[in-house]
């Protein structure tokens, strides 16, 4: 029981501490943003459309279907993304995606564990979008912020 409690505390506090540290030690308030290639010229996605596209549903601009790529490189940003965009737990989100894939036969929402790889994927496809910290997008002329998804309250 003690060990279980310890595990629980380590897990929950670990993530929380990560988020808290980011809040405390970052001078600039953190922002989680929806990003795409600079070359992307489609109309920005609403929050609802963002939710749809990350849940594996089609979001089109003209004849082009936009593509979402999950950023699982950073646990803290992923949890904020889950809460603010998908409104599901990580487990339920995975289950939903898998269920939808099995049910419809469509491709699941890709996931990227590497930020570098994710950026390359965004560069290569101007109709793809993903989620990352604003600081990762700034000073990068190949990516642009499509929408602010969450902003740390100061």
């Amino acid at each position, binding site marked *: *029981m003690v*060990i*279980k409690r310890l*595990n*629980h*505390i380590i*897990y*929950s*506090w670990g*993530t*929380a501490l990560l*988020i*808290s540290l980011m809040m405390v030690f970052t001078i600039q308030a953190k922002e989680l943003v929806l990003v795409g290639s600079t070359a992307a010229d489609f109309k920005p996605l*609403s*929050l609802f459309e963002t939710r749809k596209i990350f849940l594996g549903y089609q979001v089109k601009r003209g004849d082009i279907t936009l593509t979402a790529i999950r950023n699982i490189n950073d646990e*803290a940003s992923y*949890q*904020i993304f*889950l*809460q603010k965009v*998908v*409104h*599901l*737990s*990580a*487990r*339920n989100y995975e289950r939903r995606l898998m269920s939808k894939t099995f049910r419809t036969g469509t491709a699941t929402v890709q996931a990227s564990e590497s930020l570098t790889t994710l950026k390359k994927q965004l560069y290569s496809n101007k109709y793809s979008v993903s989620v990352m910290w604003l600081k990762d997008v700034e000073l990068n002329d190949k990516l642009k912020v499509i929408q602010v998804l969450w902003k740390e*309250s100061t």
Partner: protein
Amino acid sequence: MITPLSFLSRLTTRMMIIVIVMHAVFLNVLYFGLGAVVEKGYQSQFVDYVRADAFNFAANISGHSNLVNHINVRAIEEAVLTGRTVYLKVLDTDRTTIEEIGDLTNNDRFIEDFVFGHGDDNIYHIVASIYDADGQNIGSIEVGYDETDTQLQIDLAYQRCLIFAAIYALIAFIFSSYFGQQMTRPIESLLKLTSKIAHGQYQTKVTVKTKVTEIDRLARSIEFMRAELVTQSDSMEHLALHDSLTGLPNRVLLEDRVNQTINCRSSSHAECVLVVLDLNHFKEINDSFGHVIGDSVLKKTASNLVSALRASDTIARLGGDEFAVLLPETPIDSAIPVIENLTAALSESFICEGHSVVLGASIGFASFPEHGTSYQELLQKADVAMYVAKRAGMTSQIYQPHFDQDALLRLTLMSELKIAIEEDQLFAAFQPKINLQEDRVSGVELLVRWMHPQRGIVPPDDFISAAERGGLISQLTQWVLRAGIKQAAAWHQDGRDIPVAINLSPKNLIEDGFQQSILSLLEEYSLPAHLLELEITESSVFADPLGAQEILESLHATGIKIAIDDFGTGYSSLVQLRKMPISIIKIDRGFVMNMATNDDDAAIVDATIYMAHMLGLKVIAEGLEDQQSLEILQQLNCDIAQGYFFARPMNISDFEQWWLSSSYT
């Protein structure tokens, strides 16, 4: 005594340790693995609920620009009352509180939670934005959800995991103990049974109740081994306690039976009789018809004796043609009819190679407790009685205390002689032999003497016959040979070549390796063979002339001189002796001692000397005791004489003194 080390090395303990270690690992993995899955599941379920609920609530109150100012308070209250919601707060874009309900936190600064369990308030804080119909942000709701129920569910899951693990461990422990016992109990039983077998207790059958095939097979193998051991043990016991030729009990079993009877001291079992019988004429049958026929005669005799006895009697073969019978619970009077039956059985004739042979026997018997109180005593006295019967030519004789003490002495000496040889109670006496032509010592005869610690000097005739009867003649002869050769070698090294004559028993000539043992002694002491003389009697030569001739010739060829002792008392003739490799004849003292007074004896001595010389043999006259006999011998041209007239047999120190003072040296 069970030490900690032996306790740990026991199979049951080891099995239990293995089970405990395995379950300690397995149950930990099960507990934490399953617990983690359950915990994660509950947490995900909670997070799903709060996220869906918060954003659904926000979505439900979105859509109208004024709605945020006209919030449905009842709906908020309902949410707080019916759900897990602890508090709910509606704020506008300036974060001004428009409506709030529930147990509000006093935190100065609202911190949103993104994982279950963040913070120590057991509340999951979440923010959801509110939009108008145009999608413009018009405010937000902050909701707090109670984590306590979920946390209790998680704790309960862990508790149940722990209980199940404990129950599982307990059941596993009980089962493993039970099955461990089931396995080790028969092994323990087998261990006890094999231990019994190892200690000679073969009679308990090896059986164990087990359903384990390997143990069952092991038990069967051990039972098979035990059965084989019983068979072999019975066979060995039978061999150890029975005579292989006749199948009768042997001396060991007889002794055991006698002791059992004697030790059974109840009045009805008080008396018993031990009978010893020795077959007559068996030696003649053996010599005449050979050992094969002799053995079959013994078997037939044994069978006849058994038929003549009662069921309760025990008959044993003591060795050779000697048997003994135990008549238990039998007073001496009641033994007479049984002994008559034995006599009748032995008087029946046998057919040997077509010849009808009647053996007959000499029987002696002694009674317990009248004549003796131990097996040895009874056997000895029955043997004395048998010896008396044989000497007297009687069929049977009961032991009488006044019987010839010599017989008793003879039997006693037989048992003591072995100790005497081993403990060096014997000593050599030397009697000089004088060359009558040269008046000097031509050699000595070694005569063995026994200095008994209690009886003093034992006459040689008494113990030599005992040695022959008791099978000790070989050891005695070896002792004498070694003493004679050693002394002759000492003299030889001293510059005195004095031949030493040693008497042999007839039984020495039929011993295996006898000739080689003499040669080995000569080599050991570096004695020239011509300084050794061996004296044998006529009877020993002519009992087995061919065998004796072969051995004597080979000894003669090495240079050893052979003399015929006590010549004239047997039935041989000089013509027969001519074929033998003989160098010397010793005329028996009976003729020499009476020679001066008896003309017949003088004539025999004269003729013997004459004929011996004709055959190229030397003649020694024994028993010379007076001057007159010496003069006659000198006149008859006798070569050598020995007797008290010159010197009695002397121990070595006396002999050396005699040597120094004698005119014959």
